[in-house]
């Protein structure tokens, strides 16, 4: 980040870096499974995971699971993120909101979504509603927290400037406070992306007959560890790709900060 000339080198390295990093993990994995330290039922070989993937792709479940889960993750993420940013902005800057909401939300943060599924089912049924609830609950709390926390670090000088320039509170909010807290909000959203995929597993425990999370549970029931690995890796890749997209967009939006 200092001089510009090494930038190019690192840009290339960074792009190939992902490959190197993943090749390394693959290598270790192949070694471990070839050495037969652990039973196949617990650590399947890369080859068997690959063929399980091909199997799911060929019988059409993978495509359907991906479609279904992606739409759930997207909707849950969108709801959770919008609410999280919104409430975070409110509790972060409005003392009344902070006083009323922050304690209750802080109490909720250590409570896992799975524990709330029974309640969610009563409210939303076992249809798509409860799935959106589980995903957006998890995403919401994290995005809320990061946004709220970031609000505490909005430099006073910006508020002073905007107040003396007599802009409305609404404009101040949109054009001063949000940009100033943007790096934190962005961090929250990026955490939220990963959480949306992560909570698919909990969300699809009930009332689902397809989806990555459902398939994962099924694979576990039938000790298809090869499928489990395949599905977990797919989850990882989906999350990572979505993260890269959000990060790229974020970097463009928060262009005034290096990084």
């Amino acid at each position, binding site marked *: 980040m200092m001089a510009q000339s090494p930038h190019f080198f690192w840009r290339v390295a960074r792009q190939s870096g992902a490959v190197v990093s993943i090749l390394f993990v693959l290598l270790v994995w192949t070694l471990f499974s070839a050495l037969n330290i652990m039973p196949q039922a617990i650590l399947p070989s890369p080859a068997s995971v690959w063929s399980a993937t091909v199997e799911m792709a060929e019988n059409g479940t993978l495509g359907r699971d991906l479609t279904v889960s992606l739409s759930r993750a997207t909707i849950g993420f969108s709801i959770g993120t919008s609410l999280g940013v919104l409430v975070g902005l409110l509790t972060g800057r409005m003392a009344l909101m902070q006083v009323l909401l922050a304690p209750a939300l802080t109490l909720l943060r250590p409570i896992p979504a799975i524990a709330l599924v029974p309640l969610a*089912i009563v409210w939303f049924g*076992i*249809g798509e509603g409860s799935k959106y609830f589980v995903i957006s609950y998890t995403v919401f709390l994290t995005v809320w927290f990061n946004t709220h926390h970031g609000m505490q670090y909005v430099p006073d000088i910006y508020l002073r400037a905007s107040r003396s320039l007599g802009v409305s509170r609404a404009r101040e909010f949109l054009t001063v406070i949000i940009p100033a807290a943007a790096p934190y909000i962005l961090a929250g959203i990026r955490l939220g992306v990963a959480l949306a995929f992560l909570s698919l597993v909990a969300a699809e425990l009930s009332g689902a007959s397809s989806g990555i999370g459902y398939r994962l549970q099924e694979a576990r*029931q039938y000790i298809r560890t090869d499928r489990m690995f395949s599905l977990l890796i797919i989850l990882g890749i989906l999350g990572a790709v979505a993260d890269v997209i959000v990060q790229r967009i974020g970097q463009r939006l928060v262009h005034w900060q290096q990084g």
Partner: protein
Amino acid sequence: QDIVFGWNPNPSTPQVDVAMVNGYFEDAGLDVKIVPFVSGREAFEALLGGQVDVAFMAEFPAATGILTNQPFAIVADLTRYQGMRIITKNEPLDSASDLGGKRIGTSIGTNTDFYLSNVLASEGVEAEIVNAAASDLVAALARGDVDVIVPFPTYYGPAAETLGDSYQEWRAPGYQTHYVLAVNADMSEEKSAAMEDFLGALVRANAEVAADPEAAMDATAAAMQGIVAPEVLSDLWADSVFDLQLGSDLAELLHSETEWILSQGVIRGEVPTLETVESFFDPAPLSEVAPEAVDLD
């Protein structure tokens, strides 16, 4: 001798509770290290991972283990539960045809799923099966998301309580849950000896349960630390047969379960022969301590 016992505290196996309360394991010279799991499936996973010496579970996961040729063996069958139910709200049920076209909630890939399939198949009835986590079924039925549920036995009590007067059940016949003990396929000499002592202590407890059911119920209730109400416990026990054995009825059940699992399409392979299924039984330790309890062809 050390035994690591993967255990799921439950109301259906008083033999284990009695053996612990009365110190039968110590009497047999064993140091039993109890490792609790939330379900038999987790205990089974730990067994396959070599973390426990003996695992307690329902028989159903073993069928999957047989199909995927996992290195384990069943050494005893502690309890049969024959009170499996199908539950609805309002509408009474007394035959499989009543289930036609209904939305039925169950946990896929479990013995309740298998049980339901058998009931439906017995009269060739078609219904829509909805997967739900075990603990969510009651709420789904109460809300009306599903018309019928087939939950695990521990949920019967809460279902009756939640649904109140609208609770309806049908004890469809055709399936009993077996609670079994499984060990690693290639036990060392030493472990085999310990396993004999372990089963010996359970056989002793088994007799004690038969002799004094009330004391046994106290032992179980104490072990459950108040989580199940006494009436729920006695209701469960009314349909349970506590009799430690290892018989061909279990082999036949597992055989039909493997066939059903294969029909679900997640695991591919051939239906194993009954001999193959029985090759996953290890009657040796039990025959040492209670030859009359073993009844295999």
